[in-house]
């Protein structure tokens, strides 16, 4: 049974956001406020992880089930990791202000957490906007940086446009079915209008997930933003977006099977485009932006299968992708955004360099890390559901481009281990809090792989 106390974790995170806003009055200033935020986010994650109850709230607008539990815990936990890291570092070298960033991240986390549980069109839209709105500000966090502002504006305009397209779709959905609750929406018998409505709705989510062909904002927005902001923006809202996509497909795919082909096409284009575009990048933020496009492609591939397995795989992989991706960007934020800034990291900070190796291996899909099991399930779903050869062909494309992805991930490893020492290597001051955050990410990447069994149960496999 569930009650309003089910929203206690969201309440804790909200408290954290409010405290962060008034960080200047806190003992310890910004740093203290960020620490409190991290603690609250972690406790929210812990409460969600320990609370096994399931049910609905507000007449079905929020559904608390295994997937919601997994994603909410993931969002809160990763936000906690990010804040923990932030408590030991600045968001950018020339930007000492931390409290706004912490508050924005926590607000975005609330959006993500609610989004994961929302089973109502309006709630979903509100939550989605709440999870992305703060991201615009985080991307343009450095007020005097023109490139950052340009990226933020680009992100904001495109995101707004796609949000409105999505809202347009939602209005059709409501108009043709008379319902906003997912449980009451059925597209059968709505004809072309239903398909159009579904398409418009999907466009909004594809853009938030930076799937091709709506990915253009991502590389520019990320390349102008502080890497620490990218770490959050490119991962946490994405997890929740994937969860929303799964919930929507639950409703739409059974009645509109043609959507499978749209998803499959978007998947293949994203995988190929993302991986090939990432190859020549020399700015790690751009590289990870394109790699994010590619990973969204993998997600869509499993999503297109429209099976329980596919959905479970998407949920698992969304987190399995987010953890290493966030962590790599945190290290990039410490070392510098250019590929060359990573040179000889292994000599300077061996433990961090090896952590990056673990994350990259997970992203490539080397067992027994989280990314491997994620891919095992992602590829399994379309093979299992395939009634035509096309999904199988898409899986073959997926494995081929994942070999390509090893090519650019290894460019990072090459820099860390083999490149010449730069003339003036940046000296990163030691920070216990940031090191703990990095350590948590490594342990999570390994543990999500070896200890995958209980997680699968959660995402409904």
């Amino acid at each position, binding site marked *: 049974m569930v009650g309003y106390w089910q929203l206690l974790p969201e309440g804790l995170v909200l408290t954290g956001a409010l405290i962060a806003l008034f960080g200047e009055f806190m003992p310890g200033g910004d740093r203290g406020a960020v620490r409190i935020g991290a603690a609250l986010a972690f406790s929210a994650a812990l409460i969600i992880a320990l609370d096994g109850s399931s049910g609905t709230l507000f007449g079905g607008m929020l559904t608390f089930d295994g997937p919601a539990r997994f994603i909410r815990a993931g969002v809160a936990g990763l936000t906690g990791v990010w804040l923990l890291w932030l408590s030991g570092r600045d968001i950018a070298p020339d930007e000492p202000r931390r409290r706004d960033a912490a508050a924005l991240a926590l607000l975005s986390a609330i959006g993500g957490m609610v989004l994961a549980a929302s089973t109502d069109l309006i709630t979903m839209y509100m939550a989605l906007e709440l999870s992305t709105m703060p991201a615009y500000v985080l991307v343009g966090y450095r007020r005097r940086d023109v490139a950052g502002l340009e990226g933020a504006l680009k992100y904001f305009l495109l995101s707004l446009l796609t949000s409105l397209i999505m809202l347009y779709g939602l209005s059709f959905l409501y108009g043709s079915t008379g319902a906003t609750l997912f449980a009451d929406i059925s597209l059968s018998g709505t004809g072309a209008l239903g398909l159009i409505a579904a398409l418009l709705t999907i466009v909004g989510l594809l853009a938030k997930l930076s799937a091709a062909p709506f990915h253009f904002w991502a590389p520019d927005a990320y390349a102008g933003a502080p890497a620490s902001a990218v770490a959050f923006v490119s991962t946490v809202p994405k997890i929740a977006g994937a969860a929303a996509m799964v919930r929507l497909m639950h409703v739409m795919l059974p009645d509109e099977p043609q959507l499978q082909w749209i998803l499959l096409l978007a998947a293949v284009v994203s995988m190929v485009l993302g991986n090939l575009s990432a190859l020549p990048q020399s700015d790690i933020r751009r590289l990870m932006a394109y790699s994010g496009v590619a990973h969204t492609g993998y997600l869509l591939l499993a999503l297109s299968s429209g099976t329980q397995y596919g959905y479970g795989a998407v949920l698992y992989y969304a987190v399995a992708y987010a953890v290493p991706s966030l962590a790599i960007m945190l290290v990039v934020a410490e070392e510098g955004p250019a590929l060359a800034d990573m040179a000889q990291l292994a000599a300077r900070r061996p433990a961090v360099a090896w952590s990056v190796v673990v994350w990259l291996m997970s992203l490539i*899909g080397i067992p027994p890390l989280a990314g491997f099991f994620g891919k095992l399930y992602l590829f399994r779903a379309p*093979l299992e559901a395939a009634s035509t050869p096309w999904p199988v062909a898409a899986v073959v494309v997926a*494995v081929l481009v*994942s070999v390509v992805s*090893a090519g650019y991930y290894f460019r990072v490893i090459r820099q860390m281990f*083999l490149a010449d020492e730069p003339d003036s290597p940046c000296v990163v001051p030691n920070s216990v809090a940031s090191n703990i955050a990095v350590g948590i990410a490594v342990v999570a990447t390994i543990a999500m792989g070896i200890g*995958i069994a209980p997680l699968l149960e959660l995402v409904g496999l």
Partner: protein
Amino acid sequence: MPLLTAIIFLPLLGAAVTALLPQSRPDLPKKVALGFALVDLAVALYVLVRFDVGAAGMQFVEKASWVPEAGIQYYLGIDGISVTLLALSALLTVLAILASWKIEKKPAFYFAMIQVLAVGMSGVFCALDFVLFYVFWELVLVPMYFLIAVWGGPRREYASIKFFLYTLFGSVFMLVGLIALYLHPAAGTFDMLKLAELGGSGAFGAGFQWWVFAAFFLGFAVKVPVWPLHTWLPDAHVEAPTAGSVLLAGIMLKMGTYGFVRISLPMLPDASQSWSWFLALLAAISIVYGAAVAFAQSDLKKLVAYSSVSHMGFVMLGIASLTPAGINGAVAVMVAHGLITGMMFLLVGMIYERTHTRLIADVRGVSKTAPVAGGLLAFAAFASLGLPGLAGFPGEFLSLLGAWNSDMWPGYVIISAVGVLLAAAYMLWMVQRVVLGESSEAVVGITDLGAREIGLLVPLIALTVFIGVYWSGLLRYVDPAVTSMLTAMGAM
């Protein structure tokens, strides 16, 4: 006692300990690594001795649930084929560590990598769950990448990434194949023994088998390597440090052929039968091509690398024959090649340490100044060319015999037999230039092998002679497993 788990994960513990050693004591890592490797070898030998030789089934079985939802288990066990390779990999790990005694660049990192490599190598030969197999299979890539990339020769960056991407390319197809096999309505398990049983009972349709075989083929053939997927091998070998070459040629190539024997054949018997001509064709081409290219090499290490392509062709030929003699021969070549090529790479490495060149033109007349090194190189060359009485002979002989007695076109066997002649020719020519004759400039004044170097070659020499004379001792282990597998797949 979970002996197999101990063999597999002892090196991992060793790697952790090695990595955490204080940097102020650069002499410690090799000693710690050697200690762990020796204990590991002792356990492996204990398993080898306690192994019930006559029995066909899996022994020392360990089973635990891992991901119950997908039927993924922690499932280990060995039969006569795997136990020999397991012991070989434990032995070569010890020798590889001894051969690296003079490594001065980041020793803790280096010896940790060697030990992680050992985890993957022994794991592959013990795994009986397909996902677990894949875990170990991929695990070897990372340490080998670093061994080549950090301690390799001048073109190490290129060679290491080529090695990694090439093998990853093969193994992702294996991943697709293993998912497809799991998803087959009759299967629904990653249990390799059960899959083999299902394959033998004809549960998988011919068309399905065809596709899965193709996927597995890409995974295994890259690793063997079979012509035309071999191009990563010469680069990797030439650039790798000596210990890396020894383990690469000695064990990692065998993972590919082991995959054919353990997975492709028993699980996909129909496809194996219908693809056998193709395997035989590629085997024959690999044998002759490897030998012909070895002829043309001016670099000693490259010559040994291409001779590996040729010898692994005999393994593939034996496998393609689908006869007891052929597959016994294939396993025998696997073991013999591990010993002999290990010896070759070690000797080439020792000569290189002294002369700082591997060019045959510059390394002439070694026996004049270093008679022991020259003599042992000649010995290794004779073993490699398949001289009767040494370990190289029985395997190649049985492979050819099995292939001749099989249904395959005899032309493949005749072509392959020409490869034996070619091997004799390029090896003897190499001996004539490198070992005999007047010393070249680089060779003048070099010291002969020291006690440590001779000591680490002795076990290889002894085993080469022992197996060469008493090969039935090796086949006593291998044959029951081979026979029961062929019976199960209906090829006997």
